[in-house]
């Protein structure tokens, strides 16, 4: 078969590891050869499945903290000890400078991460509302919506009682943030749609600050907090007071 010489290199091609020239001629061949392109597609799907199946184990938060502590503190003393004896004053001065630089860096990085997460959340919110079938479980009954998530997400959470409030539950769906599965609930308040997202805190790649500042360019109001190991986000175009009262209902119920 003519294509055998191509097939031999198909995996290397899909790994993006052929030389430029070869990559280009492969591109051209795959475009024009139905059988190779079908094969390539199957292998890409296989790669994706393996990638998804391979992300399987998550360390516990307790273990992460233990390791973080063990690598954060220990060596500093030994590095500094000699110098401190001779130039204590200089070291203190320097340490001060370094600490502030370090904290400055860290907060800049955290802020960038928070903005990134928030844009993702806003995208999920908008994308879902724009979809023709925004929710997968359509129900106003929290006792229907909650069990629906069972077995779909690796945690459980409580939905608030909405009697005596202006909110009504429209339904829910599964969602992903940074490859982490979570729950997405949609509420209605005087025709405003508000999303509530729930994720496992430890599955998110970094910690988020409680005082989450909404970037001005986003026209949504958001609120986020962490409770019982879960990270909640409330987002919508309703007023900050409305968003906050929905957040309070959640905080009270969990």
């Amino acid at each position: 078969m003519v294509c055998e010489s191509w097939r031999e290199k198909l995996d290397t091609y899909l790994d993006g590891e052929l030389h430029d020239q070869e990559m280009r001629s492969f591109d051209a061949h795959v475009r024009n050869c139905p059988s190779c392109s079908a094969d390539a597609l199957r292998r890409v799907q296989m790669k994706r499945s393996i990638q998804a199946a391979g992300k399987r184990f998550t360390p516990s938060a307790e273990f992460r903290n233990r390791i973080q502590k063990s690598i954060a503190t220990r060596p500093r003393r030994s590095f500094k000890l000699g110098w401190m004896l001779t130039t204590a004053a200089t070291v203190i001065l320097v340490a001060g400078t370094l600490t502030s630089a370090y904290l400055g860096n860290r907060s800049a990085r955290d802020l960038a991460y928070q903005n990134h997460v928030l844009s993702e959340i806003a995208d999920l919110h908008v994308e879902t509302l724009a979809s023709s079938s925004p929710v997968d479980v359509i129900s106003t009954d929290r006792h229907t919506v909650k069990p629906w998530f069972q077995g779909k997400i690796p945690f459980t959470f409580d939905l608030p009682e909405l009697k005596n409030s202006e909110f009504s539950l429209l339904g829910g769906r599964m969602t992903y943030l940074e490859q982490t599965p979570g729950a997405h609930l949609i509420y209605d308040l005087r025709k405003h749609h508000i999303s509530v997202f729930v994720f496992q805190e430890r599955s998110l790649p970094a910690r988020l600050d409680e005082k989450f500042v909404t970037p001005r360019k986003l026209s949504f109001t958001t609120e986020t907090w962490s409770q019982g190991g879960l990270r909640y986000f409330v987002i919508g175009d309703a007023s900050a007071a409305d968003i906050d009262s929905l957040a309070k209902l959640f905080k009270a119920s969990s």
Partner: protein
Amino acid sequence: MDGNKSTTALFYYVDVSAADRQVDSFEELAMPLFDQLYNFAQWLTHNREEAEDLVQETYVKGLKGFSSFQLGTNFRAWMYRILRNTFLTSRTGLKATMTIPLDPEEEGPEPAIEHDTPETLLFERTNRELLQRAIDELPIQFREIILLCEVEEMSYQEISETLSVPIGTVMSRLSRARKTLRDSLRPHPQIGTATSTIARGTNYGL
């Protein structure tokens, strides 16, 4: 003298900051890898406790050896190499290496090209667990290279650094690993293909 003093102070400043920066950066470099290293560790050990021990030892060794780590070279590959070497010298690791297929890798024909497509069959009854089980059952050498390539999305160069083998070996081992995985995902594995690769390895170990 004033001039002398400030020179001395400057000297200390540079030196201490370098030491401090280094310590900070181990944490900064290593913590983002935490989840993926843990995932890889549990794939290797099949056991939560052992995975935790393995990750812990990796971080301790990494921190200790960080001064010898060449900045500018690949830190991720370096950490994975520590984890892997630690695993291979552990009891579970030694046992696992008993089942490595020991075919000469550089020479010998590449696996035959397949015309039928187990992938399609897989996707029809697709099933994350099925795939996970198949990966779990791969000999350690195949399991690790599949994970490094597909899950960690390492380049061949990075894999070569992690496993301390030439790129040619990475390519041929990866190709064999993929073939073994595909074979094992066939609904009825044909005797004489996947089974024999694994069996041969096992016998060799014994």
